[in-house]
């Protein structure tokens, strides 16, 4: 345990899968050569195979006794490569009327080969049969775990966890690109930069935090999905959602790393029975599926959410629903409420 811990709560009932968080991170942190395929933040449609492909089956983390578990090192294709497009053909070779723009796999060595996979490739699939089909969106970033498997796996002590806020960082000067961290991370949120021969991942926008500004993915989220703050700050949304109301729970707690991104699990519309009647008894998203993601705590979390939402419907006051509605946007990430547009900045280097 570090002295303090910053944490996130992502409300899956509000995430609309727009990937604004993903793009805000991309433009801020991963637009350099060697980072083309990196998405430190990614939103996946669930049920789905995730990014990288089949990440939940890739191992890593710790078992119940705290012993390290072997993991798989994903390929660039598993993550979804940064595709090329045939811009030259369409825009500059006079084929504007005959050729259409399409992606090409960069590993096809110039051949006009369509990619087989990409980030959130199974975006439009979901699960279930009409009229009971279902899906929800699951954003993931580095979980800045209390017991990071990446940190434990690194033979060079290149990964550290900051005492003052629990941010997990890779020291790019110490990293030798061995990638044991990528194997060991059970959430598969570490990427290898082949141009610089180092591993890289979400840094929780620490440079913004030091100026009092919330992480880009938090601040840019148009759906007011992301709450952010100190886990021990009893006035924060984080404390109330995780500790007081216990509705925000970790993803795959069985991975044993004690992640610090918490999720408000998804409620779904009721099922229709075989007669087309509304079936309130059986949830549309199978509970077994949700338990496979969030563990047994998901039952109590969903029960609390339903109860409090019902109170609100009846005109009663519910602190929980008020927090989740997020009437006042800045309250979601106290004390990191500075507007980056109003900060004084050093003059750009000439």
């Amino acid at each position, binding site marked *: 345990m570090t002295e303090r811990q910053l944490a996130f709560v992502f409300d899956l009932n509000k995430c609309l899968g727009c990937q604004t968080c993903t793009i805000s991170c991309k433009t801020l942190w991963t637009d350099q050569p060697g980072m083309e395929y990196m998405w430190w933040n990614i939103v996946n449609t669930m049920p789905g195979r995730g990014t990288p492909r089949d990440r939940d089956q890739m191992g890593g983390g710790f078992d119940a006794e705290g*012993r*390290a*578990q*072997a*993991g798989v*090192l*994903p*390929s*660039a*294709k598993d*993550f979804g490569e940064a595709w090329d497009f045939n811009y030259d053909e369409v825009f500059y070779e006079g084929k504007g009327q005959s050729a259409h723009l399409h992606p090409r796999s960069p*590993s096809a060595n110039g051949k006009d080969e369509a990619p087989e996979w990409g980030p959130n490739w199974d975006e439009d699939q979901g699960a279930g049969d009409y009229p009971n089909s279902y899906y929800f969106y699951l954003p993931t970033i580095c979980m800045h775990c209390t017991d990071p*498997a990446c940190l*434990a*796996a*690194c*033979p*060079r*002590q290149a990964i550290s966890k900051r005492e003052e806020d629990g941010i997990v960082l890779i020291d790019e000067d110490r990293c*030798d690109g*061995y*990638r*044991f961290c990528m*194997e*060991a991370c059970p959430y598969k949120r570490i*990427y*290898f930069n*082949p141009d610089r*021969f180092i591993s890289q991942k979400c840094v929780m926008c620490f440079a913004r935090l030091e100026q009092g500004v919330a992480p880009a993915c938090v601040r840019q989220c148009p759906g007011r999905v992301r709450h952010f703050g100190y886990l021990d700050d009893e006035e924060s949304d984080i404390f109330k959602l995780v500790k007081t109301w216990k509705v925000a729970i970790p993803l795959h707690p069985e991975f044993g790393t004690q992640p610090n991104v918490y999720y408000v699990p998804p409620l779904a519309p009721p099922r229709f029975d075989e007669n087309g009647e509304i079936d309130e008894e059986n949830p549309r998203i199978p509970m077994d599926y949700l338990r496979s993601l969030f563990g047994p705590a998901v039952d109590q979390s969903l029960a609390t959410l339903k109860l409090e939402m019902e109170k609100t419907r009846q005109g009663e006051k519910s602190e929980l629903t008020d927090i989740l509605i997020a009437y006042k946007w800045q309250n979601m990430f106290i004390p990191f409420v500075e507007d980056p547009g109003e900060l004084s900045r050093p003059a750009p280097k000439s």
Partner: protein
Amino acid sequence: MRVGRVDTRDEELLSPESTAWQEAAVNEVVLSPTPLELQPTDYIRVSRNGRPYGAVSSMRVSALHNGDSVFFHLVWQDDSEDRAIKDINQFVDGAAVMFPIVEDAPLIGMGIQGKPVNVWMWRADWERPKNVAAEGMGTTQRRDDPALSSAVRHADGNWDLIVGRSLEERDAPPGTIALAPGAASKIGFAVWQGSEQERAGLKAFSPAWQDLELDA
């Protein structure tokens, strides 16, 4: 291991076909996997348990100097030639020679605090070898060293590598072994097979120091 003295220019000694190498004594160096239980993290020990590494079992080594520079000619079998990272889950081939900076620096673990070792490390995707100082596992400091040079070819399922360094000590990175005509030291060897995802301590190595004597 004797380092014979020849009157041959550096450029020629950097060619595996040079007659100087054809006439040089060949030493058969036995290699074995680094011990699993000595790997530095629990993750590495668990993940490579039952997944063998360090399969290269021997290496042919010749050594020559010309009064100005010393060269080691290493030949070992590796059917797959891994020169470049084509995907993020791939690793490249490598090899290294290691010297103790103080006489009783341990080979296993690459030295220990206060008893450093010096490594000249070649990796198939590097333009030139790097000069590595270490005082135990996880402490390596790699430095560019213009005095280091190498030449390599991969033929008939073998890597054929020459790695050498000027005997000049001026401007040497900190922690560089001082070798001179007539001097004695010790040497160790290591090989990484990229195709087996070998990196860091996952490698084949010569488990004990060998004596090294430079002809006067």
